[in-house]
């Protein structure tokens, strides 16, 4: 099998295991490179060793011999309940779930974007925008964008955006969190008049 074929067969689990492998190597080597004292070094290295060996075994599990392969691949569950009842539930859920994909703005314009990917990408953008400009003014934009994409009624989307903004504002007001200030942009001067009004109330 060529490397290209193997690359094509890689699943997200393989990617995850490679990430864990790299991470464990960092946790094994960094204490030596940075000369950590024993009481700061032993425990992370012990746990990293388990992650390293385990991830490696899982990565090459299809090539492991005999008993070792069985142990790595075999699923163990000491509290196995009636699987027929669980299968029945899964079957009914599948029947109940609509087969048609969700209505999205993208699909209406002929673009096929996976719903989970959209959720993660939009949340990531929300995180970075929140970091740069503060969550207060970014939150309604995120909620509106998300609800618009999934074709939620505009009134509901706007209502949710307002509700989310109010929640963020309450965090600023009562927990004194600087959510109106980002690492790049600072919108706090805009809030001063609102703060005065709330203070008077």
């Amino acid at each position, binding site marked *: 099998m060529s490397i290209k074929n193997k690359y094509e067969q890689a699943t997200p689990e393989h990617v995850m295991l490679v990430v864990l492998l790299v991470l464990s190597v960092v946790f094994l080597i960094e204490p030596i490179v940075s000369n950590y004292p024993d009481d*700061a070094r032993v425990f992370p290295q012990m746990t990293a060793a388990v992650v390293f060996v385990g991830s490696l075994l899982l990565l090459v599990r299809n090539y492991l011999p005999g008993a070792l392969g069985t142990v790595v691949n075999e699923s163990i569950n000491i509290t196995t309940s009636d699987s027929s009842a669980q299968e029945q539930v899964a079957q009914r859920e599948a029947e109940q779930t609509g087969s048609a994909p969700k209505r999205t703005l993208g699909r209406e314009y002929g673009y096929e974007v996976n719903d989970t990917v959209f959720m993660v990408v939009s949340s990531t953008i929300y995180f970075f925008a929140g970091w740069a400009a503060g969550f207060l003014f970014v939150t309604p934009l995120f909620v509106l964008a998300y609800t618009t994409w999934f074709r939620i009624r505009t009134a509901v989307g706007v209502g949710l955006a307002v509700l989310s903004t109010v929640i963020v504002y309450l965090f600023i007001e009562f927990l004194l969190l600087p959510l109106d200030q980002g690492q790049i942009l600072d919108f706090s001067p805009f809030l001063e008049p609102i703060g005065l009004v709330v203070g008077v109330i």
Partner: protein
Amino acid sequence: MVVEAVVESQLLLQLDTITEGLQIALSWPVIGWMAVGLLLGIVLGALPGIGSPVGMAIVLPLTLPLDATSAVILLVAIYSGAMFGGSIAAILINAPGTESAAATTLDGYPMAKQGLAKNALAIATTASALNGFLAAIVLILISPILIGVVLAFGSPEYFLLAILGISLITIVTQGSLVKGLVAGALGLMISTIGTGILSPTPRFTFGQFGLYNGISFVAALIGMFAFAEMMKLAARSQIAESDIELGGSIKDGILTVFKYPKTVLKAGLIGMGIGMIPGSGATTSTFVAYAEEARSSAADGRFGEGDPRGVIAPEGANNPTVSGSLVPTLSFGIPGSGSTAVLLGGLLMHGLQPGPTLFGDQLQITYAIFISLFLSNILIVLVGLSVIPYASRLTEIDTNIIIPVVVVLSFIGAYTLNRNWFDVAAVLALGVLGFYMVRYNYSVIAFVLGIVLGPIAEENFFRSLQISGGSYDIFFDPINRPLSFMLVLGIVFILVGPFLKPYVERTLDRT
């Protein structure tokens, strides 16, 4: 004579502490937070895709301004309420709000289709609350025994117990043993980021001051339970609309539960027993209770076609699982499920240390938690039965409305913890990791347990070595530390058992 006097004084002391716990549970605002938690739990449990772990995880950082007792009781009430709330969606739209309510769909939904939705919901409310109520009493009664066990543990035992807990979870949850161990070790490994516990060495911070305090375990809980669950929810196709009408009678439903006392008690025992096993939550207990009822009543049962016992059994098991899972969580810091993992996070976040402290100096708080569980089950009947007429509205909420709100609350909640952007980033990164861990059968609970117990395990590991002058023999000394030795044997048995299983089976076959 002397022994009798000692026993009598101990009993009086226990009674005093229980009274103190009762006063705390009934005091204001504690009882108010309990009611809020219960309502919130019912609503969150009824929303398809949102269960108690998600609800508790997003509420967790919001409890920061509360006192420890109110915060923990709020979380326990959400947990308890969500157990009942999950059955609403299961019965009305055949889509369980929580995984623990999945078994309820088997007979609950057919009952609703036969025009008995109110009966099914009333059965669920009554069975869940009745057994939850009984289980809370059992929990209070067995506490004195737990106290003795907990106080016998020292540093080496606590370190080994954390390792045993993670090992046990790997064989209780689905998936291979190696996957579970990797997940648990990864959690422990990530918990070491930040300033060292015994020496002030910044570890794996790479010059970033934001990482000096490490990755908050609360952020990890939010990522693993709330964000990952939202990713799962985004992937799910829209639930087909239900055409169920709320027919039937609430009164008949309540009376049905009392017609089957054996079913109710059996479900309660199964729920509480399975709840005590680390890693096995209400999903397991409800299916086991259902399967047992279907087996023992097979002769006259119509299971799968709307048999009320098919609702009583899983619903009667779910709330006792809450009580059962509190035993390993509060006594040893080993959570029994995702929800108790979040609860454990809540305890630690508010400075309540599971184990000797909660069963020693802070015993009144432990009793207050147990008593609030007892009270919340009374409230479930009152609140649960009164929400039945409006229950269907909750299940009609579009999941795409829920997702952005949960994402916003998750991010803001994570930022609230330490005003640290790394915590928010951790929610995002660990959320994605959690999504794939669930997809490929890696135990999320083992990971979370690792990240929550990491600092405790590391501290006790080094404290043990300090006691022994650096010798690892302290963990393997059957004469001076028999408990520690037994825990080591337990870990070895769990880890080596699967390797020996094929040989043992072959030998048994031959004989």
